[in-house]
């Protein structure tokens, strides 16, 4: 019998036929009387190669992709189950340049292990971090996280250790750990990939947080657009609890930590931490005033750590390998790695985990190999719907919190969406305002009304109605939203709008002498 065959069960891989490929492999093997052992793994993150089938060989795992079910018979003819040569062979998976050059810390196991196998998780370093943490005091755990330089991967980039310390020092009879898995930004899928590919890493990270600050209950708030991830993660919680890793006692020796997955309901605003807490409490997702900080008065009024999924899933490796190990990656005040999600109109989209500091150009041109359409690159939006649109001239900006802030952009959750020359940036700016209007919780006026007025003003500018006056008005409105909104939704919507206006002014002027390429289509 040959080595194991891996066919991803990640939703993205399934979306391009991985399920049918797995069925075809099982059918073909049965037909030929070949005994195989198939593992349904997460994705390696090289999404343009999905469905990516791997086989275990003495030299390592060999990849084939993208595989269609029609290719399966040919693969067996080529003895692929022993790593045989075939047109779809990509050689050793870990030698594929896109993968080999990455620095996988948070996603070290994703795509490699059977996501729901506790044995596999343990065999790949799982629970080592938690075991170490259990030998430390709460204050020592928090100190390690602080030393690692980890900052919130949800977008705000707030130092994780400081947040934890606040909760640790807040006296209360009950504290909570809340994972924000309401990954609403377009261009991002890291949370989904991890929940489907290595869910125990998140459980371990949350357990470390719980042990650190004395929280006995955790919630993972997963968006309803991710039914597949929700199911996988729920199963992971059940198995980890049944195995005694969490529940009445963390790993049988530690304090209690109960974990529950909750489903969102299609509200982008619930990715904002206080809105998320309201939603978990069973209310409309209205943003809360701060202070009080959630670390002091969070879920049900109790001290609560609210962290992004990637932040929490990064905690185990910090304890497994040490704070200094993690901190040694990165640049400036951005330490460690960032799982970048390269998406949109790009040839080779996927998840690329790298130390902070890679430039947008390296990402798009080198990793991405340019646009999927083959047309010229025109713009990139980084950081989701509230992130700025950058032109070619800013592609040398390194991915670093401070470097992005300096050019009036933000990294957000690490989503990079590429557009070719058919994009109309005025249309994109209008969409940003319309999106804000649609998703505003309505609590503060700049966001609730400003967004609707913003969309109207952009429409007038596009139509050429009193352009000069309306441009002044739009600028004024954007400044008001920036300064006067309660949270990042209203407060950052001006980013895509003003960046589009600044870097692509021609798109806002239909009377311009030279029409942009898209207008000529």
């Amino acid at each position, binding site marked *: 019998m040959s080595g194991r065959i891996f066919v991803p069960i990640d939703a993205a891989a399934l979306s391009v036929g991985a399920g049918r490929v797995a069925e075809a492999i099982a059918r073909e093997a049965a037909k030929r009387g070949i005994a195989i052992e198939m593992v349904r793994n997460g994705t390696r993150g090289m999404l343009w190669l999905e469905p990516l089938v791997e086989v275990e060989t003495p030299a390592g795992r060999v990849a084939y992709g993208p595989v269609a079910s029609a290719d399966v018979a040919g693969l067996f003819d080529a003895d692929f189950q022993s790593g045989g040569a075939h047109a779809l062979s990509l050689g050793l998976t870990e030698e594929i340049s896109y993968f080999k050059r990455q620095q996988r810390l948070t996603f070290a196991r994703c795509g490699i292990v059977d996501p729901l196998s506790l044995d596999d998780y343990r065999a790949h370093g799982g629970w080592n971090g938690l075991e170490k943490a259990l030998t430390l005091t709460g204050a020592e755990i928090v100190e390690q996280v602080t030393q690692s330089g980890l900052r919130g991967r949800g977008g705000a980039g707030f130092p994780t250790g400081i947040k934890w310390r606040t909760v640790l020092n807040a006296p209360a009879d009950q504290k909570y750990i809340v994972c924000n898995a309401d990954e609403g930004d*377009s*261009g991002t899928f890291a949370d989904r990939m991890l929940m489907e590919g290595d869910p125990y890493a998140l459980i371990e990270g949350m357990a470390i947080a719980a042990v650190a600050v004395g929280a006995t209950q955790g919630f993972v708030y997963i968006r309803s657009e991710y039914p597949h991830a929700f199911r996988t993660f729920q199963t992971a919680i059940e198995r980890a609890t049944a195995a005694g890793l969490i529940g009445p006692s963390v790993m049988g020796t530690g304090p209690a930590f109960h974990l529950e997955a909750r489903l969102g309901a299609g509200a982008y605003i619930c990715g904002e931490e206080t809105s998320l807490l309201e939603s978990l409490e069973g209310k409309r*997702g209205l943003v809360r005033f701060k202070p009080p900080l959630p670390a002091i008065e969070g879920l049900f009024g109790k001290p609560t750590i609210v962290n992004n999924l990637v932040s929490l899933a990064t905690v185990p490796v910090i304890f497994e390998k040490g704070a200094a190990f993690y901190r040694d990656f990165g640049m400036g005040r951005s330490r460690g790695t960032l799982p970048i999600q390269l998406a949109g109109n790009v040839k080779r989209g996927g998840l690329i985990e790298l130390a902070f500091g890679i430039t947008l150009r390296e990402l798009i041109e080198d990793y991405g190999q340019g646009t999927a359409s083959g047309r010229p690159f025109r713009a990139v939006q980084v950081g*989701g719907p509230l992130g700025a649109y950058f032109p070619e001239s800013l592609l040398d900006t390194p991915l670093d919190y401070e470097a992005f802030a300096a050019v009036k952009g933000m990294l957000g959750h690490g989503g990079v969406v590429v557009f070719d020359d058919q994009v109309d940036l005025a249309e994109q700016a209008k969409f940003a305002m319309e999106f804000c209007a649609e998703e505003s919780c309505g609590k503060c006026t700049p966001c609730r009304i400003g967004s609707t007025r913003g969309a109207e003003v952009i429409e007038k500018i596009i139509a050429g109605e009193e352009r000069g006056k309306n441009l002044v008005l739009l600028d004024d409105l954007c400044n008001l939203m920036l300064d006067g909104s309660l949270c990042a939704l209203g407060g950052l919507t001006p980013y895509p709008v003003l960046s589009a206006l600044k870097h692509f002014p021609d798109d806002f002027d239909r009377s311009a002498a030279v029409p942009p390429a898209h207008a000529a289509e």
Partner: protein
Amino acid sequence: MAQSAPFDPEIARDVITGLKHLPGATLPILHALQDRFGYVDAAVVPLIADALNLSRAEIHGVVTFYHHFRAAPAGAHVIQLCHAEACQSMGCRELERHAEARLGVALGGTRADGRATLDAVYCLGNCALSPAVMIDGELHGRVDAARFDELIDELGIRR
């Protein structure tokens, strides 16, 4: 997709009773009801309010705040088109127009024959394989017009 059960206040009451002990039970209850009946019938509002000792206004406010909850039954198949930026970069605006024409229904609507509901959704998390579409909870990637038609044909939905 499994056909949803017709609305029954007794079953609804059981569902609510089974979940009301949860902290912040409103959303889990609403999800369970929508999973069961395919939508959130207005008649459940007073039932949930009673069970959780909240006002009807509060429950109504929650139901209407979230895009996910439907006020009326959906079609036999629910087709969600992603219209977020990554999908926009790969032509989802054109796909939307194509889907509306193929299904004969505007975004947000249900076909007169009840066979399908067409919705826009903001991000399915499949942004490297855009445009993305979700059909009855199953994700599909790189869906151009031809692929969309194949998927709809597989459901046996006539033009």
